[in-house]
């Protein structure tokens, strides 16, 4: 069942076309990754989904229809960086924003207490927001987006400024929310986290959707563009190899689009190189991202 249905949206600001043509759907209970280089139009797409902006073209359906005031209490949103009142205490700020979402103050306090304990912020609840570290503010923002127990959670760079322990904490939380049926839309540049968490992704570049679908299917579609080779000998320069990287105790050869793994194997055997391991490598999302975005640049 689709929770969000974005249909050919476009948005311009003056002469700048922030979003040209983007379409995707998001299903209930999935973690959806919204990816793209800086300035690709991710944040504008999020704002169009939330009806902060109205699209110049196309339409957005969220929770079975256009965005309404009633639906706001069913959606949690965390903008990239900041977003909280800086000059009041953490507790006052989060309670106020939760009550605006329609949560009774007493209930909001109970929920907040649990989250503050979980995120190691309980002892800082009396401090002004501006006195908290960047990581603490980031955690506070995540709490703010969750206090009203939304059905849909839209988070922009949720892991920014977090140390590995807190990254793990947020990952665990997101998995828990997915199990509870919460739909999560996450925009991030940290591809390894997308690989760990997301069911499906959308890659936007220059305001257009360029890659969209299940993560493993996308990875499979790029399968064959890299091989892992382990040998005791030094590898010669091979035509058709775009890049050579060390990968654990092997070498990863990134291939040009026109080169196949078989051709590489043929070259190696023809040069009488003793091969201990030859494996077609599953491309990482990082590699796919670079490949798609750079491919886009070359096509300009």
């Amino acid at each position, binding site marked *: 069942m689709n929770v969000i249905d974005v249909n050919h949206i476009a948005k311009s*600001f003056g002469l700048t076309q922030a979003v040209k043509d983007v379409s995707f759907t998001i299903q209930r209970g999935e973690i959806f990754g919204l990816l793209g280089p800086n300035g690709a139009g991710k944040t504008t797409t999020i*704002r169009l989904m*939330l009806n*902060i*902006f*109205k699209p110049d073209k196309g339409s957005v359906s969220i929770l079975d229809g256009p965005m309404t*005031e009633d639906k*706001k*209490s069913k*959606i949690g*949103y965390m*903008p990239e*960086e*900041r*977003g*909280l*009142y*800086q*000059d*009041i205490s953490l507790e006052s700020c989060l309670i*106020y*924003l939760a*009550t*605006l*979402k329609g949560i009774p103050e007493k209930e909001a306090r109970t929920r907040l207490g649990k989250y503050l304990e979980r995120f190691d912020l309980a002892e800082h609840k009396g401090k002004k927001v501006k006195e908290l570290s960047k990581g603490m503010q980031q955690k506070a923002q995540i709490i*703010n987006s969750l206090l009203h127990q939304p059905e849909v959670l839209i988070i922009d760079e949720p892991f920014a400024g977090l140390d590995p322990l807190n990254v793990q904490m947020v990952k665990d939380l997101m998995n828990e929310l997915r199990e509870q049926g919460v739909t999560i839309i996450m925009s991030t540049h940290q591809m390894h986290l997308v690989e760990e968490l997301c069911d499906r992704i959308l890659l936007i570049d220059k305001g257009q959707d360029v890659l969209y679908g299940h993560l493993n299917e996308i990875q499979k579609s790029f399968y064959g563009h890299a091989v892992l080779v382990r040998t005791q000998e030094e590898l010669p320069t091979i035509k058709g190899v775009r890049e050579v990287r060390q990968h654990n105790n092997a070498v990863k050869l990134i291939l040009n689009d026109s080169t196949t793994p078989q051709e590489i194997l043929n070259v190696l055997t023809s040069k009488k190189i003793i091969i201990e391991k030859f494996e077609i490598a599953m491309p990482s999302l990082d590699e796919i991202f670079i490949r798609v975005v750079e491919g886009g640049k070359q096509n300009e």
Partner: protein
Amino acid sequence: MNKLWQVATFEYKRNVFKKSFIFTLLSVPLLIGLIIGIGLFVESSNVDTNMVGYVDDAEVINETGLSPELSAIWVSSYSDPVEFVAYATEDQAQDALKSKKIQAYYLLPEDYFASRRVFQRYIERPGENAERQFFDYLQLNLVNNQPQEIAVRVALGTKAVVRSLDGSRFIPESGPTFGLLMPLFINLAFLGLMLLSSGYTMTAVAEEKENRTMEILITTISPSELVGGKILGIVAISLTMLITWTGVVLTGVFIASRMGISWFGDLSMDWRIILATLAIAIPAYVLVTALMVAIGSVVSSEKEGQSISSIFIILHLVPLYISLLFLKQPHSILAIILSLMPFTGLMTIGMRNLFSIVPTWQVLVSMIVQILSAFGAISFAIWAFRYGMLQYGQRLKFGKLVRMKRRGSS
């Protein structure tokens, strides 16, 4: 609780319990008190009730004293009377001055009637009350031998009552009373509030835009609840200031009237004028606040916002600059137009009420214009907020915004 009220309550509490607000709240009455205190101190330092001597070579001052009628006037005229002592020679007067028995002495030379010269001698300048009283005393002695009816008339002087050209306003000889000036004070208080809070209002909105709190808020409640709540909260903050200041002023006035300060003797006020003033001032204030919210929503920097907001403040000051025109012709076409316009109506009616009585229909029309303008400004602020709020770092000119609004474009 209604979300609009929640926003208003939050804005109110968030600002009212700040140290800076409490400082501003108290600093204004303290500053006024300080200025009045310094004034009273300076005035009291000019009062010296020590004796004053005189040497009357011209034989002007009657040794047997003033007539009973003039004596009665003389005794009732001063709250800080000075005793005058006659010396036969200037040497005696000088000795008394050097020994500080007297604060000064006056010498009336033989040719006084021809020259009208009076010599004043002192070591330290005498009190202003002493100087004034001596010359009054001299004047009474000059008319002492005249028919008493004339002497009394001269002693009492003239009661000058200032009347407006259309005859609808009278200002007594003692000057405008506190009650007469009260509506103008209310206008000036609102003007002061505008000056104090407009910058704050605009900055507060611009800051929330800058730190993206607005982005969270706008995905939580409607723009009208948010902007309406903010305006309501800011107006409540300003009314808190106004009520506090009014309380302080009224306490001061009460104390002053009990102390017998003449200016506060007549506290009678025309409550209809005061209510009409408030009925115009409150929507005028809401109008400015809403516009400040709109400006804060669209500007890319605080500095840019200040330059735009100053235009609206200057418009409020226009009637002060041309107040002489209202004095000459309080019911001129210009005065009527300015009374009925938003921005200028508040001060124009305040000024005109000083010199005349503004017709009721003009007050009512001005009030309606202000209320409609205030609602229009709130609607514009909500619109500006909706379309200008999230243009981070982008310059959205206020004029362009107005044109967009006219076109109904998004």
